[in-house]
């Protein structure tokens, strides 16, 4: 039987695997999409201690190799549920069932969608969640960015360097983004602020996005903007609904846990962006990975007595 199963091979899950292996435990990590998690798309990381600059891809690749070299197993399967049998937990994936003694939930967060009907179908056909990844395909075209935080404002700035025109659509008239960044954007001639408006529909033509409908929050007036691309930057959201039977969730779907990474269920731990916390960064994800793995290892010790 595996000692510790880790759900999610992001920075938190892979760090947990490193600490588990080094504590003499056998760790298996399950990953539903790409190991490395959210960070793989980031061109440059400049705030991880002792690494001045690294690409997200290189960070993910190095972390993955480090965990693997220490003996952790990484399996590309999606975890769909956990059966808590006390001293033995059964992790259910889309391909099989695996028994273990402790589980660490490190499912992270994903880009939050707008929640519009045809949004998913238009991904890669005009709808994107990553301006630095997909921006170049919209060179010389008109695009929109939805959101009001730092990511939205930075995305709009980045896109304004390539695109004919950029609409920044925000549901308020104030920004959460740094004022300095907003001012920089205001100075751009090809950026138009569309404020107090929500994106309420996506129009398509021949299977591709051709316009967005925006609705004024106060007057309910609708307006259509012709765009070739829409970059959605309205934050991240977790998805832990499959684990509600073993971990209680806070509003917003984050797993309730403190710095100790305990979920309240014996033998079920959590780490990284998927838990309730104030700062969601690589350093805090790595920190949780260490805390959760050592707590899990200590739990297994206590069961053996």
């Amino acid at each position, binding site marked *: 039987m595996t000692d510790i199963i880790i759900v999610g091979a992001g920075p938190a899950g892979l760090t947990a695997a490193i600490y588990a292996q080094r504590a003499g435990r056998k760790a298996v990590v399950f990953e539903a*999409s*790409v190991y*490395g998690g959210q960070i*793989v798309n980031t061109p440059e990381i400049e705030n991880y201690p002792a690494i001045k600059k690294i*690409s997200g*891809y290189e960070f993910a690749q190095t972390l993955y190799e480090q965990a693997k070299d220490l003996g952790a197993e990484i399996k590309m399967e999606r975890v769909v549920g956990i059966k808590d049998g006390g001293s033995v937990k059964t992790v259910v994936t889309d391909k099989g069932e695996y028994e273990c003694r402790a589980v660490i939930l490190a499912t992270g967060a994903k880009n939050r969608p707008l929640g519009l009907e045809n949004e998913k179908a238009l991904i*890669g056909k005009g709808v994107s969640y990553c301006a630095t*990844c*997909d921006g170049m*395909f919209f060179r010389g075209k008109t695009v929109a960015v939805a959101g009001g935080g730092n990511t939205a404002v930075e995305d709009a700035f980045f896109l304004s360097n390539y695109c004919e025109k950029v609409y920044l659509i925000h549901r308020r008239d104030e920004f959460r983004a740094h004022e300095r960044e907003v001012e920089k954007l205001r100075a751009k001639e090809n950026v138009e602020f569309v404020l107090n408006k929500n994106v309420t529909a996506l129009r398509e033509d021949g299977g591709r996005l051709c316009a967005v409908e925006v609705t004024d929050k106060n007057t309910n007036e609708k307006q259509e903007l012709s765009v070739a691309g829409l970059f959605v930057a309205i934050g991240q959201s977790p998805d832990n609904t499959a684990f509600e039977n073993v971990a209680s969730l806070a509003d917003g779907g984050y797993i309730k846990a403190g710095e100790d990474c305990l979920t309240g269920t014996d033998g079920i731990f959590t780490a990284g962006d998927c838990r309730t916390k104030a700062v969601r960064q690589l350093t805090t994800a790595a920190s949780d990975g260490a805390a959760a793995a050592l707590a899990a290892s200590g739990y297994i010790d206590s069961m053996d007595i």
Partner: protein
Amino acid sequence: MAAVVVTSANFEAEVLKADKPVIVDFWASWCGPCKMLSPVIEDIADTEDSVKVASVNVDDEMGLASQYGISSIPTLLVFKGGQLVNQSVGVIGRDEILALAK
């Protein structure tokens, strides 16, 4: 066999006129997820005789990318008998890739 590097000059011969299904991987060197997909694509190229595997560097071949409406990478397109029959955006596993070409 390694994936065939495809350009607008040989796209017709290598992809549209191929005698088996072709999986075309649109990628770029600055795209992290593309680099994660590449080993899987190369592995399919090396081990699966039933399909042909081709790769398009979008930085060099913006024309091909826009012709096929690529606006996010990695994107995989699958052609059979000169027709586009399937596509997928983002990193997916080996089994899912092969299923696209079934």
